[in-house]
């Protein structure tokens, strides 16, 4: 068992070395240069966002549906009203550091979410960062609870708005998730550019953040057996 593992990893390292020595020059430049040529099709500075939200917007809707189903399954299987009691009280350092760090992590998540069409990042990453801020509050503060009605409202609003924007694009431009708002290439790089793409990414971030927060809370709240 161990011998086969070591030999497999040796083969892996030799293969990687072979690839690296064959084309040294082009391997770190190929993907980025080709992606940069896609920027001119839409007024979005980040080419990956153009691919994820504009060219493959329908796939992103499917990913959101998959994440919703995962969150629904965890909620159905693990939901419990009794919060499990931690064996040791959270100490002073954790309590103080969570008060200090929670606004900063939350602000960073919102920044990643809103600037997803200008810099690396986007809705998924920003939403998960917001969920990790909620996780920090959950493990440090015993009485903290994610407000369930607020989460329901945010998640429903985000999901319905995504489909509605797609349908408006279908009616206006004969294209589901068509970019019907002004997306001038001259405005590329400023915050209000790219038409519907930043709006859709903010909606994706809201939905992912609320779903992951509820998922983490359901995992923590499971009563001890």
């Amino acid at each position, binding site marked *: 068992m161990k011998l086969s593992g*070591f030999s497999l*990893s040796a083969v892996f390292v030799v293969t990687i070395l072979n690839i690296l020595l064959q084309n040294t020059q082009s391997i770190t430049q190929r993907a980025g240069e080709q992606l940069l040529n896609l920027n001119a099709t839409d007024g979005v500075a980040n080419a990956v966002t153009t691919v994820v939200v504009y060219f493959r917007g329908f796939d992103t809707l499917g990913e959101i549906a998959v994440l919703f189903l995962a969150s629904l399954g965890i909620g159905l299987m693990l939901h419990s009203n009794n919060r499990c009691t931690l064996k040791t009280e959270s100490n002073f350092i954790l309590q103080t550091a969570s008060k200090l760090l929670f606004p900063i992590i939350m602000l960073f998540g919102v920044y990643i979410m809103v600037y997803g069409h200008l810099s690396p990042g986007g809705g998924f990453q920003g939403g998960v960062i917001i969920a990790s801020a909620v996780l920090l509050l959950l493990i440090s503060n015993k009485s903290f609870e994610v407000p369930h009605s607020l989460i329901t409202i945010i998640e429903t609003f985000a999901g319905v708005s995504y489909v509605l924007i797609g349908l408006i694009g279908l009616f206006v431009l004969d294209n589901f998730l068509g970019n019907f708002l002004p997306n001038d290439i001259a405005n590329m790089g400023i915050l209000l550019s790219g038409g519907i793409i930043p709006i859709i990414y903010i909606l994706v971030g809201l939905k992912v953040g609320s779903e992951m927060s509820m998922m983490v809370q359901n995992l923590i709240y499971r009563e001890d*057996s």
Partner: protein
Amino acid sequence: MIVFLILILFIMIVVIALSAILQEKLIDSIVLFMGVGLVSVVLFFIFQAPDVALTEAVIGAGISSVIFLMALKHLGVQR
């Protein structure tokens, strides 16, 4: 120069992953799994994929390890 850095990172990934599956305690395996994620973040960044690097740092090394730790705590495996 960059080739040697990439090679060192690849060898680090292989060594950390092998030591992760050879651990006795499961919690050590989870921590080393986070290490694999963190090294691959640097590797994704060198290959000009900062979006993938951010996703791996947040999801692969962050929230999935927390979910693994919670599952380990609920299972009560103490070996």
